[in-house]
């Protein structure tokens, strides 16, 4: 965890540096007349200080005997797959339309686990898609995209 703390604290330090520079560009004003960037400069500055404290804490405290990666022993491929699927869904939903894109999304999400039969996943995805379409589009007047196929 110490290595991750060092890495993450550097990330927050960079973010705070960026926010400070942007705040100065926007104008921090004076305490008498605070500008646009006054509070963000303060928040970013304190974040920078705390990032340095965290970095120092992670660097000088003794690590335990066994350092285990937070990503070891987990099904990270499953997580990555789901992320890719939902990003693609967001990208292509306006073009394919709600019905087609959601059916595909749900089919892939139901299928992701071992032992799930394809016909069960297909049936469940279609049922879920049409049910949600009915509830949200017709019942709650949500305007889902129709896509190039017109539905």
């Amino acid at each position, binding site marked *: 965890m110490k290595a991750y703390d060092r890495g993450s604290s550097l990330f927050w330090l960079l973010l705070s540096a960026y926010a400070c520079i942007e705040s100065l560009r*926007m104008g921090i004003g004076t*305490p008498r007349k605070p500008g646009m960037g006054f*509070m*963000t400069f303060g928040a970013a500055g304190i974040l920078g200080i*705390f990032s340095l404290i965290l970095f120092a804490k992670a660097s000088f405290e003794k690590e335990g005997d066994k350092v285990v990666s937070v*990503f070891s022993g987990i099904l990270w491929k499953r997580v990555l797959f789901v992320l890719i699927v939902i990003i693609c869904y*967001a990208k292509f939903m306006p073009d394919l339309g709600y019905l087609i894109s959601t059916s595909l999304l749900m089919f892939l*999400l139901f299928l992701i686990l071992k032992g799930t039969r394809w016909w069960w996943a297909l049936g469940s995805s279609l049922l879920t898609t049409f049910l*949600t379409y009915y509830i949200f589009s017709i019942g*709650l007047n949500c305007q889902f995209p129709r896509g190039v196929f017109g539905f």
Partner: protein
Amino acid sequence: MGFLDNIILGFQVVMDPINLLFCFIGVLTGTLVGVLPGIGPLGAIALLLPATLRSTPTASIIMLAGVYYGAMYGGSTTSILVNIPGESASVVTCLDGYQMARKGRAGPALAIAAWGSFIAGTLSIIGLMLVGVPLANAALSFGPPEYFSLMCAGLIVVAFLVQGSMLKAIMMALVGLLIGSVGLDLVTGLPKFTFGIDELADGVGIGPTAMGLFGIAEVLVNLEQRFEGREVFKTKIDRLWPSLKDWKASIWAIGRGSAIGFFLGILPGGGAVLASFVSYAAEKKLSKHPERFGTGEIEGVAGPESANNAGTGGSLIPLFSLGIPATPTMALLFSMFLIHGIQPGPLFIKTYPNIFWGLVASMYLGNLLLLILNLPLVGIWVKVLKIPYRILFPLIILFCLIGAYSLNNSTVDIFVMILFGIVGYLMRKFGYEGPPLILAFVLGPIMEQALRQSLLISKGSFMIFVTRPISAITLIIAGLLLLSTVFPYMKKRRIKYKDLKED
């Protein structure tokens, strides 16, 4: 209008069929969310935020509040029958509730949890009526310095209470302040941190942010583990009415839990979770046989379950009387009001009596509905518990996607949600907490306004925050909490509190 007139007004409002329906939907959803591990009331309220756009503010707050206190009821079912807390305020119920189930006393455990929740919930609603209005009147004398200090204190208390590192929690609060500042400046109207993206001119949406941090991130964290079937304790659930002996053992615990929960709920950063832990610790301390706690003591169920429900009523008070959301969940309710163009604050109860008293009346009704849902109909929830996560997680993802899209009919919101989903996932892997971020995100713009106004009043002097008594006291309390992580002997006490949570 007199007190009784207001109550009658409230019941007139809640008897509107739409409001009744939303009350039922809220408590049912809350119970469902509480029963099912994987999404808590915070994530559920985030998911339902877009749906509130199409309803009135009254119906919306009735529904969302119903989800919040409904989840407290539902969480006890999973804790007692499966030894997995359905939501974080039911963690301590696992300690004795599950042990009671193992001894064949699942029925009395569920019954006392439900009855305790009902009594405490009812008492906290009375407290809300009695304390909320006078506090709102007192808050009219609060100025920008008091508001700024209260909000700072609230953020520090939330950071103090997280399970992980307080340093990291404060960092997340600061990140939340930065994210909350995205959009157009309050005074000049110029864009801040929008990167030239037009959709960010209105700021980063609370809905996609919350759904990403608490919905998508939660699903991703669960997905990385192998799914094992939830082992629901196989026992006949009978004797859903507690015996005289059970009542005798529990009644004082219910009373104490109600008081603890209500007053802790009022504190910024308090809420149901803190209330349940403090109540358990109090019951153990006061018990003649503290060594029996953890083996199936009914007080260990009655106290915390009462406290977490009483905490929900208490936490509504700062929101309505001061306009300050005390917890991340209240922050989402606060956002719902802003979406409808309503500003919670000291004038809220006077300006919108229909909404306030309608909500109060709906909570009476909601608590009654929950008693019926959680006792005679507990069998339904036992079946729901057996739904595999492989079916649940695609549905949660789908509801998040629909929710994010339906806010503005824009896929930009979906991408924002996915981004915060990834951020939330990585935050959990690296030990950073989401609640301080989301609370600071909502409070940020109000804090900035209060800070700038304070400095204008004081002509640039920061001494205004210490020369005004309420502001000074609040900042001293916040300062002491911060220092407590530095002084070793206070640190040891905090570690003891954390150990109690981990046990």
